[in-house]
Each structure stands twice: as structure tokens, then as C-alpha cells.
């Protein structure tokens, strides 16, 4: 009887202790959930706020006119974002063309080729690039790159434009892509490389046909993050791109000279004009933000689908 009681008592104590532990467990779980929700909440709020502020513009101007209008002249109530959309897309393409090969080369070098001593110098140096403020990049671009680009002898080339902006952006997204791509390449199991080498592949063949394909999803993620950063960059762009509201066009017969054309990005449109904007103009600026938001969501979703599709 007494013994049974004791057992019962012990069991109860044990149960209590378990319950306390469960409670702590639950508490931590909800705390973590809360942190996750806060970030969703913030994105949700920003999206909603932008849409709400831009709503008047979407209603008054119309989505179609806003997206396809070539003329942006707030003083005369003309609000077309096509020039800015084209500017943002083109400068991002330019930055990707220049930056992605460079960043991937850098990542492969750091992950596969560089001896530890070299890596210990190169990696922090690349990371340092991420720490340089955007306005400093802009200043560098304005004082060094713009005069250099101006040397290209094409009539109408002022130096300010897509090429200068793309070069600045390519350097700015370098650390983002390099770091993530390097991590992805490092995460490829050693056995893959050993297998390839054992089959007689050279180091370069191993990198190209085994390591890089295996790290593909990480590399795609890195590039997408770079695209996101490029689309969102503002200050440095304002300083070197010229900010003219024109749909970029080639300066002569050579289609490549489109990159010498001035342009304005969506972000630049917001930053340059928000100080002055009132009424419909202000709302149109927020609509610009909403368009940018959607553009970045499209890029992210595309990346998601791409990664998942390839994984299957």
C-alpha cells in the first residue's frame, strides 16, 4: 500500500517535471513562431502601405497607362512608368552580364582553387566590398567611371548612363553572389569530386561537369539575390545613371550603344521626386514602389520555380 503510494507520488512528480518542460518547450516554440511572423508582418505591412498610398494613382491613371506610358511629366499630369521599368530592367541585365561571371569565377576560385593562405586574403577583401556604403560607390562612379565611359567615341555619350550604372552595380552585387555561391559550392559533398577525379576527369572538368551542377540551386539563389539587390539599389544609381526620363535607345546603328543611353530606375524615380511630390504625383511615386515590389516578387518566384523545377 505504502509502496504503491510512493510509486504514485514519484510518477506524479515526474509528470509535473515533464509538464514544466513541455511548457518551456511550447513557450520557446511560440517565441520562435512570433519572430517568424514579425518578419512576414513587416513585409505584409509595407506591401499594403505601398498599395494603399498608390491606390489613387492606380485608380486615376489606370494600370495600363501607368505601365505602358512613355512620358513621365508630373507637372503636366502625365505618369508613365515604362521608361523607369525599362531602365531598371536594363541596368540589372547589364549588371548581371558583367557581375555574374566575375562573381562565379571568384566563388569557384575561393572554393576550389585558392590555397588557404590566398583565400584568407581574398575572401575578406570581397566581403569588404559589401561594407562600402552605396553613396561611396556612387561617388566613385561619378568621378572615375563616368569620365572613363565618356571616352567611348559615340556622339551623345555623356558618360552618365546604363553602362556606368551597370559597372557600379556589378561591383556592388559581387560580394552577395560570391559569398552565397561559394557556400553552395563548398556544400557539395567531397565524394562527388573524388568520384569524378577517380574517373579520370581533370580538375576543370570536375568543376564544370560535377561540382557546379551539384551546387546549381545555391548558385541560382545567389544570382537571384544579386538581381534583387541590383533592382533595389538607389543612391549609387541616381549619381551615375543620369536620371533622364527616357526609354533607353541606342545612340547610333550599333544596338549595344543602348547602354550608353541615360536612364532612370524605379528606385531613382522614388528617391529623386518624393521630396516634392504632392497629391496624385505622390501617389504615383508610391505606385512606382508597388511596381518595383511586384517586379521583385516576380523575380523571386521565378527563382523559386526554377530551383524546384530543376531539383525534380
Amino acid at each position: 500500500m505504502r509502496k504503491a503510494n510512493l510509486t504514485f507520488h514519484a510518477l506524479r512528480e515526474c509528470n509535473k517535471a515533464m509538464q514544466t518542460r513541455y511548457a518551456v518547450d511550447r513557450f520557446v516554440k511560440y517565441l520562435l513562431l512570433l519572430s517568424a511572423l514579425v518578419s512576414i508582418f513587416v513585409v505584409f505591412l509595407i506591401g499594403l502601405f505601398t498599395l494603399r498610398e498608390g491606390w489613387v494613382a492606380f485608380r486615376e491613371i489606370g494600370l495600363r497607362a501607368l505601365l505602358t506610358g512613355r512620358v513621365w511629366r508630373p507637372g503636366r499630369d502625365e505618369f508613365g512608368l515604362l521608361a523607369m521599368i525599362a531602365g531598371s530592367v536594363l541596368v540589372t541585365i547589364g549588371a548581371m552580364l558583367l557581375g555574374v561571371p566575375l562573381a562565379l569565377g571568384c566563388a569557384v576560385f575561393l572554393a576550389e582553387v585558392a590555397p588557404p593562405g590566398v583565400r584568407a586574403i581574398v575572401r575578406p577583401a570581397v566581403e569588404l566590398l559589401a561594407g562600402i556604403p552605396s553613396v561611396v560607390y556612387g561617388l566613385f562612379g561619378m568621378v572615375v567611371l563616368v569620365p572613363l565611359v565618356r571616352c567611348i567615341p559615340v556622339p551623345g555619350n555623356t558618360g552618365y548612363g546604363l553602362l556606368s550604372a551597370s559597372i557600379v552595380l556589378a561591383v556592388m552585387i559581387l560580394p552577395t553572389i560570391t559569398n552565397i555561391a561559394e557556400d553552395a559550392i563548398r556544400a557539395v559533398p567531397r565524394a562527388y569530386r573524388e568520384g569524378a577525379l577517380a574517373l579520370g576527369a581533370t580538375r576543370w572538368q570536375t568543376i564544370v561537369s560535377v561540382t557546379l551542377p551539384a551546387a546549381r540551386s545555391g548558385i541560382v539563389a545567389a544570382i537571384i539575390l544579386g538581381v534583387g539587390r541590383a533592382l533595389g539599389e538607389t543612391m549609387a544609381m541616381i549619381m551615375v545613371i543620369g536620371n533622364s526620363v527616357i526609354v533607353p535607345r541606342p545612340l547610333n546603328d550599333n544596338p549595344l550603344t543602348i547602354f550608353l543611353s541615360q536612364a532612370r530606375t524605379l528606385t531613382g524615380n522614388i528617391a529623386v521626386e518624393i521630396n516634392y511630390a504632392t497629391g496624385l504625383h505622390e501617389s504615383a511615386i508610391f505606385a512606382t514602389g508597388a511596381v518595383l515590389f511586384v517586379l521583385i516578387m516576380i523575380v523571386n518566384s521565378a527563382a523559386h520555380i526554377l530551383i524546384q523545377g530543376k531539383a525534380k
Partner: protein
Amino acid sequence: MYLERNSKSLLILTGLLVLAMLATVVGCQSTPTPQIPGPAPTSTLTVGQPAPTAEPTEETEFESTPDPTPTPAPDGTQITEAGSTTVQPLAEKLAEAFSAQHPDVEITVQGGGSSVGVKSAGEGTVDVGAASREIKESELQEFPDLQIFTIARDGIAIVAHPDVPVDGLTKELVKDIFAGEITNWNEVGGPDKLIVVVSREEGSGTRAAFEEMVMGKEGPPIVDTAILQPSNGAVRTTVSTTPDSIAFLSFGYLDESVKTLTIDGVEPTEANAASGDYPIVRPLNLLTNGEPTGVVEAWLDFILSAEGQAIVVEEGYIAVK
């Protein structure tokens, strides 16, 4: 069992949080409407407060007694100003000088741009608005009680890259260049080089004043291939580093790094602007909604007094009296 219950409560919690978000958003949505005009009456009221207590002697009281004892409630001694970034540094100096004489008066000066200045003065969110251009017809229609005080004048110079050999233009030629009808320096007596037009962005008071005085009210817009920079300083840097470029610049920002061009043969100097010979001069305006009262009136009187106008000249602008 444990898991199941847990995931259920997780779901409930998520739902609750989403509801909370929505509530916040809805709360957000309903507040701004009254909130924006909300502070307006209070701030105008606080400034208006001293008026009934000592209306006729108001000004002399402030002018003659630096001692703050007879002044009314301390919240009645604040002035808020916002608007044109061209006026901002000048307004700060004028506020500083006024506060030095009246330690009990606190003046807050903010930027925002001319359009913001007109809007916030009209809506009453600030006591004094600032605009570095004429007030538009549409703005006067929207805010009919707006009182305009021109406190100074500012010239706008036409500047070019230092290597441009052209020394002067006529107002017509400047208009044609900025409209994109003249695109080569050789059309105005220079070398065979394409002209690089640099301008401020849409909405800038300097640009609005330039458009009104040079391009004409119904005139052509500034050519869309112009390089746009968002401040006077950035325009100056761009012109000084870009060969064959031309731009307009507030007198306050002129320096050695750019070449000033004569307009119709007149040098862009303060003396020529004050005498009326130089054609591109704009007013710097302070605005109040209705007749100013109390400390606001005292501050405006101070600005238009000899002492205030001396500060205007000191800061490189043209006095109005």
C-alpha cells in the same frame, strides 16, 4: 495527441496574429485621415494663443522686451517652418538671429521642397511655409487664405563647363538649348560639340522658376535627354566634370568650378539682379495661412526689417527692401 493539439493551437495562434495585423492595419487606415489635419489646428492655436491676450501691443512687446516674463504660455512661442530647400539655410539664419533676441521663441526649420511648403502652410501643418518660386494659380485656388511674404530674391545663373568657349547667350537661345532645339555648341558660336543639358528634377523650385522665367508658362518642356540631378550641389558637380555641359544654378551655389554665362550681355551678379538688369530672378517666399499673428507676425516683421534684410544680403541673396 500532444503533437496534434499543438499544431492546432499553432494554427489558432497564427490566425490570431493575422487578425492582430489586420486590426493594426485597419487602425492605421482610420487614423491618418484625422491625424494629418489633427496637429494643424493645435499648432496654429498655440501660436494664435498670445493674440487675444495682447493683440494691439503684441509686436512692440516682442520687439522691446527680451525678458520673457510677460510672454504667454510657453507652447505659444514655437514657430514651425517647412518647405523649399533653397530657403532653408536662409530661414535657419533668420530663425537663429530672431531667437537670439527672443530666447523664449523656438523656431524649427525643415526642408521638403517648395510644393511641400505651400501645401503644409495651406493645410496648417506648419505655421510658415517656404517656396522658392511664385505660387501657382492652382495652389491659390486650393488655399485661398494663403498670405505671401517675399523675403528675398534669388538669381538663377546659366552655367557651363569651364572649357566651353561661349561666354554669353540670349534668353531665347537658352530656351532653345534647354528645349532641345539647339543641340550643338556650333549653333551658338562654339565648337562642333553636342551640348549636354543638365537640369534639376521635376518639382524642384529652381527648375520651376527657370521653366517659368525662361521656357515660358506654356513653353516647351526641358528636353527629356537632359541629365537630371536631385540637388543644386549635384548639378554643379556634374557640370564641372562633364565637358560641353550647360545647366542652371541658384546664385548661392556659384563657384570657380563652373563658368557663368552672361544672359543678353548681363553678368549674373547680385548687383545686376537687384537693379533688375539680370532677367532670371525669382522670389523667395514665406507663406502663412491667413494673416499672421503673434510670434509668427513678429518673426516676419523681423525678417523684413533692416536687420533681417542685412542677413539676407549676407547670405548671398538679394534684399527686397
